[in-house]
């Protein structure tokens, strides 16, 4: 991800116009080894995902139809309650408020993350190596610091009495900020939490987009330059197509992660004030790990999954369809 940005073309090859690979035509048809090859390559990943992710996911669905509190868990008792966990959850008016809040919060955080990530990636491409590594180091530090530390630091920075932000604002002349509480309402609390999440999420997006950007051969940029394109046009014609598939991917992942974000929200104000910063992930925790009502939490988890699947379903459809148009 650093100094060498050139991808020199082997002599005689046509300049790669698109990022689509040409599929390999199986040369020696009928050879058992070759037919088996894809599955062999896939096997480790497939087994791991099926056993450790897919199967537990199905179990969560099954558990959502059980009453599974601590007693039942320890004694392995099976108590089926049908849709009770679901009706209990969906009948609660709070649940819908929380869902809407979660959706708005997720959208805002994802948008901010992607925007800043893209800007940073483009900036990084144009920086000289020393400064670029400096920026990269700061990004990795933000990314790698444990959440317990970052939430605490943010709480201190925004603290009513001793926070550096209020102190600085006071120094700059905004005296009304002495003792100002940034956590007095749900939305303001969520804003501070949002800033925290974005700060720790941007590095990943930046690195990924940057990795995509430097894969674009220099020649393309030079060609655009020769044609007299403005920076914006260059971006649209050269950078954007290279980055777009990755962009959709990181957006998808950001939606997943931000929708499910829990630790920061809980550590900041435990879903307060008065439940104002509670999202679905917080409810999941309250019912599940905190309250040990695992049947109910499984139902909530399933509902969250359905919601996510609805939001991202279109993208999954797109991905599976566009590639090569081949049937599987």
């Amino acid at each position, binding site marked *: 991800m*650093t100094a060498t940005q050139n991808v020199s073309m082997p002599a*005689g090859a046509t300049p790669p116009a698109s990022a689509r690979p*040409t599929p390999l035509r199986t040369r020696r048809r009928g050879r058992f080894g070759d037919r088996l*090859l894809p599955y062999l390559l896939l096997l480790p990943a497939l087994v791991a995902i099926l056993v*450790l992710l897919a199967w537990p996911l199905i179990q969560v669905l099954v558990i959502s139809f059980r009453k599974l509190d601590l007693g039942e868990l320890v004694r392995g008792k099976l108590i089926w309650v049908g849709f009770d966990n679901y009706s209990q959850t969906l009948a609660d008016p709070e649940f819908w408020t929380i869902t809407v809040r979660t959706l708005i919060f997720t959208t805002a955080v994802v948008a901010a993350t992607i925007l800043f990530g893209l800007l940073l990636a483009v900036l990084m491409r144009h920086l000289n190596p020393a400064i670029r590594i400096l*920026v990269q180091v700061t990004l990795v530090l933000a990314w790698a610091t444990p959440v317990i530390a970052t939430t605490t630091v943010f709480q201190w920075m925004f603290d009513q009495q001793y926070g550096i932000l209020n102190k600085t604002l006071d120094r700059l002349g905004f005296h009304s900020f002495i003792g100002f509480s940034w956590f007095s309402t749900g939305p303001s609390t969520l804003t501070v939490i949002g800033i925290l999440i974005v700060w720790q999420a941007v590095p990943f997006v930046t690195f990924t987009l940057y990795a995509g950007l430097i894969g674009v051969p220099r020649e393309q940029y030079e060609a655009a330059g020769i044609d007299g394109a403005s920076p914006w046009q260059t971006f649209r014609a050269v950078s954007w197509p290279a980055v777009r598939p990755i962009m959709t991917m990181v957006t998808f992942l950001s939606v*997943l992660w931000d929708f499910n974000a829990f630790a920061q929200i809980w550590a900041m104000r435990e879903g307060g004030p008065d439940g104002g910063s509670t999202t679905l992930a917080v409810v999941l925790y309250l019912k599940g790990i905190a309250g040990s009502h695992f049947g109910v939490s499984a139902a909530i988890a399933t509902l969250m999954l359905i919601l996510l699947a609805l939001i*991202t379903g279109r993208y999954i459809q797109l991905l599976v369809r566009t590639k090569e148009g081949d049937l599987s």
Partner: protein
Amino acid sequence: MKKSLSQRVVLSVVGVLVALVIVFPTYWMFVTSLKTPGEILSPKYDLIPFSATFENFASALSKENFAVYLTNSLIVTLGAVLCALIAGTLAAIALSRLRFLGRKGFLVLIMVAQLAPVATLFIPLFLLMRDAGLINTLPGLMLIYFATTLPFTVWMLYGFVNGIPYDLEEAAMIDGCSQLGAFRRVTLPLLGPGLVTTSVFSFITAWNEFLFAVVLMKGDKQTLPVWLASFRTAFGTDWGGVMAGSVIYAIPALVFFLIVQRKLVAGVAAGAVKG
């Protein structure tokens, strides 16, 4: 695109400013780790610290079993990263370069597998580990981290392999390389940035994971998150210690990043030269 000097200066200034903004919370964390408890909650304006004490670091490092927890964390994390990279690259090649029945299904599976965060799968995964006898074993924890970072790794590398035109490999094969050789010499180096990002992502995810680290492991098989949690006692939290601990905690991830990104400079350069 050759930039003019003024353009370069402006960009550099912007770059430095951006770095300063991004690093501020980290800076604040570091500065706090150098403070005594009284200084942390002080009404004084202390953007630049007045004094520094290293006792928080000293007491954090000298905490019982730090070295053991550190070793365990390294084993589990590096193991998970390595496994994820290997399995992920193999799967990415198959998905991108080959056509076979079940390809689309696998792609959908990867997506769906990511919808649920680890916390949601807490109970089923715990039961799985228990019944497989993997509770309180390093391989057990490694498997969980491997599995949680795998879908992302596969998908990310899939995207990157897609982005590397097959023509390059074909050309190399025309020049006499075998299929595997072409992949190794041409595609793999170009995959460099993708490998770096996925390995750093896997590392950080595994390194910072708390729930399973605490629940599955006991005694001297425990990993570093437990050490970090030990700063929070019944008598209150040792905030200086937490900050010092977090600084220490973030360093291996930073080191890992610096190592892999430099090794891959060589890889990409070599790949570019060999063509």
